[in-house]
């Protein structure tokens, strides 16, 4: 194979169907769960892109899935880069959460609470607007959005905003959204089972769909 073709294959938007995209020039954000990372291109969550998490019920272990990665993002302090000293990157915005994210538990997971921003819009359209603003502002390392009205167009907008602000967008949706098209780079179905939480990777840009049973098995360094 000639060099030009190799170069092309290094682009993360192009991969061969039988294998994962080569991850030499881009890195995923390690999820903290090795069994999940193995299935994700770049060895972790896709950065600067939209991740969709589909779930039936809250309390299925959907936040736990993100916590190790979010904790790391909130603590990023780039000592080498002086120009970042007051720009305060690494914020985590929670937009329209269905309940109260409980700060003591967040702290147990190692999240820097001074980097948590909670936004409670009164209307669904405002949630999308707020998420887009937060993503594009370049201050938020991650933006978590709970929305029931996320159509294809809206997810595309979030995807673009995430790229612009170099941020990680995470949208939580109900299982009903399974049949809808989405521009997300990664779609994961979270189902709580009697033996731990199962993950179903439905769409995986640069990788292949997969099913992971009890993703957090045998990891006792984390809180519950």
């Amino acid at each position: 194979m000639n060099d030009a073709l190799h170069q092309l294959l290094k682009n993360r938007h192009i991969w061969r169907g039988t294998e994962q995209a080569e991850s030499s020039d881009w890195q995923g954000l390690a999820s903290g769960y090795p069994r999940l990372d193995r299935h994700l291109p770049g060895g972790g969550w896709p950065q600067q892109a939209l991740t969709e998490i589909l779930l039936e019920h809250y309390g299925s272990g959907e936040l736990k899935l993100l916590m190790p990665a979010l904790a790391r993002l909130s603590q990023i302090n780039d000592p080498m880069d002086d120009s970042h000293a007051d720009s305060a990157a690494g914020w985590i915005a929670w937009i329209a959460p269905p309940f109260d994210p409980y700060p003591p538990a967040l702290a147990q997971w190692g999240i820097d609470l001074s980097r948590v921003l909670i936004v409670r819009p009164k209307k669904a359209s405002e949630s999308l607007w707020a998420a887009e603003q937060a993503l594009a502002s370049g201050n938020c390392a991650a933006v978590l959005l709970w929305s029931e009205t996320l159509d294809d167009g809206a997810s595309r907008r979030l995807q673009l905003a995430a790229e612009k602000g170099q941020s990680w967008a995470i949208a939580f949706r109900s299982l009903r959204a399974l049949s809808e098209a989405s521009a997300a780079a990664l779609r994961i179905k979270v189902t709580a089972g009697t033996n731990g939480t199962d993950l179903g990777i439905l769409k995986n840009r640069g990788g292949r769909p997969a099913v992971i049973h009890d993703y957090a098995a045998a990891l006792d360094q984390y809180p519950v």
Partner: protein
Amino acid sequence: MLPANKSPATAGGSPTPPVKEQQSLSLELPVVKTTPAAIASGATPVARLWLCIYLPALPLEALHRDNEGIARAVFDDQDGIPKVLLANDVARAAGVRLGFPVNAALALLPALELVERDVQCERRTLFSLAGWAEQFTSFVVIEAPGILLLELAGSVRLFDGMQKLRQAVSTGLGEQGFSASLSIAPTPLGATWLTKAGRRVCIQDAANLTSALSALPLTCMDWPLPIYESLYGMGISRVGDCLRLPRQGFAKRFGVARLLELDRATGRLPDPRASYRTPEYFIADHDLDEELSNSDLILNVCQLLLQKLEQFLLKRQLAVQRIRFSIFHLQHPATSFPLSCVQADRAVKHWFDLLRIHFERLPLPAPAIAIRLRAGQGQPMSAKTDVLQFTKNDKQRQSLSIAHLIERLSARIGNHSVHGVSTVAEHRPQYAWRPELTLDRLPQCEAMSPGFEKSRRPLWMLTEPQPLAVRDGRPLYQGILSLEDGPERLETGWWDEDGIARDYFVATNPKGARFWIYRNRGKDRGWYLHGMFG
């Protein structure tokens, strides 16, 4: 400054010494003498000149200042009976006198226009007049209702002589429709007494003051009636008579305060005053020529107002954190909304940005006819260097600061819907955290209660615990819950209204979702859902 001998009453700021000492000190006649140090340095005591503006008709003039031949009078409640407090020339010519009951005045002059006294309005008028007087001097004192004092010694040269200056003040007051009497004296009290006694004099030399004051009737002083009566009983009717009385006896009879007042008026004791400063508020109105409903046009007008605000703040090197727009309509009450930002700013661009975000979702009930912009208290501008446009770090160039993001979100969604969080050292789960308004400062966490690290806490909490149904003694939530871990007994808070006695469990439902539930140990023994292990 008059270097008089030490009087406790003049030692500004120092704690007041015991009363006894005060009496013994002030009973001796204060002697004005120049200290050797002052002579050596060649400094002469700064002579002050006080112009007193007395507005006897303020209650009337605060409400109406146009004289169109209408008989007017102001009344207020005196002992439960509305009585005439002040009448204008026309009413007086018709025989309406001070103290007339309102009914009597109306009987005398049916066309009389009666208005109730508005003390607030008088205050406002006086304050605005004090602001106006600041063009003549930097030292304006609001002495009493209806009396302003202007320190003019420093302004005489600028206004080309005392006569011209006094003329300018007098003309200015006349143009605004105030009838005032003016007097000038080297002491503030002296000037006030002269004016209230109706003398229109200008005493520039301190040596002439005492003789001028001596001739005044006692009524020019603001003393209580019993003192006047007893002075009249002693055959004393002039200020000069008072000054001739033995100081010891006078103080004993009428109080040291009266004696001090006499000394201050005659200049034997210094009389320091605090000057009035006009607060620096910004208010600008823009009346529209026609009703506007096009939001672009309204925004244009708002931008003009913001430009005015920027000019105002720029001149004073200030910035503001909060502004308020009011949009007036013909039929509806005005639409008014505040805008605030994390760091005080004055840039039109910044405020306009926030305004546009807010405006997008603002329903205007009717077309606008006028717009008002009001700004809060200014604070010193702290300028920060901006990032150069050609900086290599692309990400930083694009990024707004987090403060800007919070401002933008708050402008559209509301201040209280955007917040940070912090933990609180508290065992009751619902009080172990609090929202932190990010507009003012970034959150700071208290240390969590000890031993907390080991306890299991859910990532989701319900704002209000949700009662659970029970079947066969087991709680239900999307199926029968099986208890997995627990109990963790929390029994605390008995010292306030909101004490708890609960056993917390980690529970799983048949679908595998995990919850944080508790059972009350009190009377109801009920099960509640409090959190979810998301």
